[in-house]
């Protein structure tokens, strides 16, 4: 019944005024909500973003990247993987990543403290690491910041054993 009486008001000045009031309220409400979202986004993002870098970029911009939160991707060199138990409460996992598996001129040493050994961390795996530049050109991984590419998507090797993705660069990510 409410529907009927409501629609029957159509055309009356009361409804017109109500409509225009609603529009103003909508506009103000919409603007406030938009401002709230912008605030939430800016507040969350400010000072908390990571810069995505390749190994080559990491080395060429090492000084300016000091103290920044970084995300670096690369191919894992299998011969560099090492898990060391320093004492009962401290372990160190280290390995090297490169942009181009077949021309590994620049190797970035990645160090993760107290991280378990991931099953996927092996030769030619693709690693995504989050962390910071440490002393001596090493990369220190944040807690939980070591990720290996999901196994469903391993399609990188050709039958001769060469990765078909070949290199990591700014453009191909």
């Amino acid at each position, binding site marked *: 019944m*409410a*529907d009927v009486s*409501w*629609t029957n008001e159509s055309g009356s000045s009361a*409804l017109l005024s*109500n*409509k225009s009031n*609603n529009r103003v*309220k*909508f506009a103000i409400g919409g603007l406030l*909500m938009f401002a709230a*979202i912008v605030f*939430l*986004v800016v*507040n*969350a*993002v400010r000072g*908390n*973003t*990571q*810069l*995505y*870098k390749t190994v080559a970029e990491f080395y060429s911009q090492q000084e300016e990247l000091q103290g920044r939160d970084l*995300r670096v*991707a690369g191919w894992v060199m299998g011969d560099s993987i090492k*898990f060391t*138990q320093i*004492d*009962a*409460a401290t*372990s160190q996992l280290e390995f090297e990543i490169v942009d181009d598996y077949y021309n590994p001129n620049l190797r970035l040493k990645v160090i993760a403290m*107290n*991280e*378990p*050994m*991931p*099953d*996927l961390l*092996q030769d030619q795996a693709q690693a*995504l690491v*989050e962390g910071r530049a440490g002393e001596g050109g090493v990369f220190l991984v944040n807690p*939980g910041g070591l*990720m*290996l*590419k*999901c*196994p*469903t*998507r*391993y*399609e*990188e*090797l050709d*039958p001769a054993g060469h990765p*078909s*993705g070949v290199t990591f660069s*700014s453009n*191909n*990510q």
Partner: protein
Amino acid sequence: MIADLGYFSLLFALLAAVYAVGAAWYGHKSHNERWLESARNATLITLPLTALSSALLITLLLTNDFSIQYVWRVSSIEQPTYLKVTALWGGQAGSLLFWNFLLAAFTAAAMAHKWDEQKPLMPYAIIVASFTQIFFLSLSAFVENPFARIAGGIIPANGNGLNPLLRHPGMIIHPPMLYLGFTGFTIPYTFAMAALISGRLDDTWIRTTRRWTLVAWLFLSLGLILGGRWAYDVLGWGGYWGWDPVENASLIPWLSGTAFLHSVMIQEKRQMFKWWNMFLIVITYLLVIYGTFIVRSGVISSVHSFAQSAVGPLFFGFIAVMALFSIYWITKRREDLKSEHTLASFLSREAAFLYNNFLFLAILAIVFLFTNYPIISELFTGERGFVGPPVYERALAPLFLLLLGLMGIAPLTMWYRTSLQRLGQAMVWPAVVATVTIVVLFFLEVRLWAALLGVWTITFSMVLTLVEFGKGTQARMRRGENFFTAFSNLMARSRRRYGGYWIHLGVLVMAYGVIGVELYQQETQRQLQAGEIVALGAYEVQFLNVMQRPGPDDLIITEAVLDVYKNGRLVATLTPRREIYTRTGQPMTIPDARSTFFEDFYVLLAEQPTSPTAVTLRLFLNPLINWVWAGGFIFVLGTLIAAWPDPVEDKITAVRARQRPAVALTGD
């Protein structure tokens, strides 16, 4: 031979889809029903053709035909049979073929279901659905051919095999559920566009679209929940959601689909928000394609994305074409999409749905923005930025909290206008119960304000929702029905309403779990010698020894034996293990857990033990994690209740269809 047959089957499916577009168009223009029937048959035949193509690829996988590149990549001789079958969706090309099969199944179901009732929309529906099919079938046929042979006639002796981490029952069901959800959203879009183009924007399309949306949404929800469970069980990081771009790619269309399922009720009841509903259906479809683009193009670095592929630009082009097409028709029909009523009060059921939509869209916008942050930041700053899970959580937590609160309040509101006094009265007792709950929790040492605020909101909404069930049941009991009859009749007679409330309950239970595990998860890593003990929370773990034994196939299993004590009492013996596939050297860490209603004590080996008397353990204490899964179960149950065909509603739709003019092959 088998590969050739599979490929030709795929090509014929593509030809059938192209023919369907032409025949539907011609049939519509010439008012010739035979052409229209022919177009429908062409659409239907894409199903057996893509099914045959998929079956033949499975045959190649089962027969270890490693001359086929795809088979070599995702299968091996040793792989168990069920994993050879599931390898169909284990890589880019196969999963695209599987996608085509599901799309054909949905399209065929939509064309076969109530053809006569929907006839006026069908020429356009066939054209839109077949156009989507043409795009995906072309990708399979010309860009990611699953039947391509290895160049140079090489036939490897064995294949790479599916990664051992995928040897989990989750592989059987999680990807198909996600794909069903994604492909399913094509159908609501198809009917929405058909309604737009034909100008038949009455109730029929919205009822049809809602049902199909609910089906797609159910599958997508299942895919998301199962993905979380799989990650928790297998990946060994004690979590279930990582805000990875590819995970977000599934969540984003789910958010817009959820917004639509709510706002569609306003259109059905009050003929409002027509334009908005059309917009939601369109963006859900576009976001599905966009999500597929993110997963398959490798444009954003993600731990889940496929290898980089040539499909990226093609997806982008397709999205652009479909977006322009949709915008054109929405603009053209803007007069027909005007609301027949305006919002009378900001305290009404309509307004509650509006706030709900605002919150869903705000969450969607933020997740979309953060997911695409690498691209956006590079565009504006020249540097590729990335945002991690803490940023998502900080930005989204207030919006989720509001949504949880609204979930309880919205069902109390009335259409048109609700009095503040009535609303206030209904909220008093739930607020009291919620307050008592957090006071009790405070004395139980729960002191984080975020946890207390979250629990207050969830409890408040939960009590409100339970009261709705209680009121409905009581009303029926007053007619002489006993409690069980009253409750089951309530569910059966108002499936949409009470199915929706079950869904809300599921979400609320999940939300308790999320608060528990996100705010109170504890973890530690420690090396232990035999007999040594490590403590975490109220638990103590004593390491006894390491045992090694051969497993099935080429497996070597190394497991640690641990006694677990809680408050000094032995409660479990856990055996977390590492399995090594000796042929490939691939390890697989299998956690073990003591699982109770209130928490999981989750243990995994941090590395391969090298001595029988020493082991490095990673321990997690995950409070309320099982509430996430229990909530997921209730959620799915609610969706099934809401989506179950309602004979009364079907009758109404049929009557309305009969009331329309008999000859309905005309349009623009």
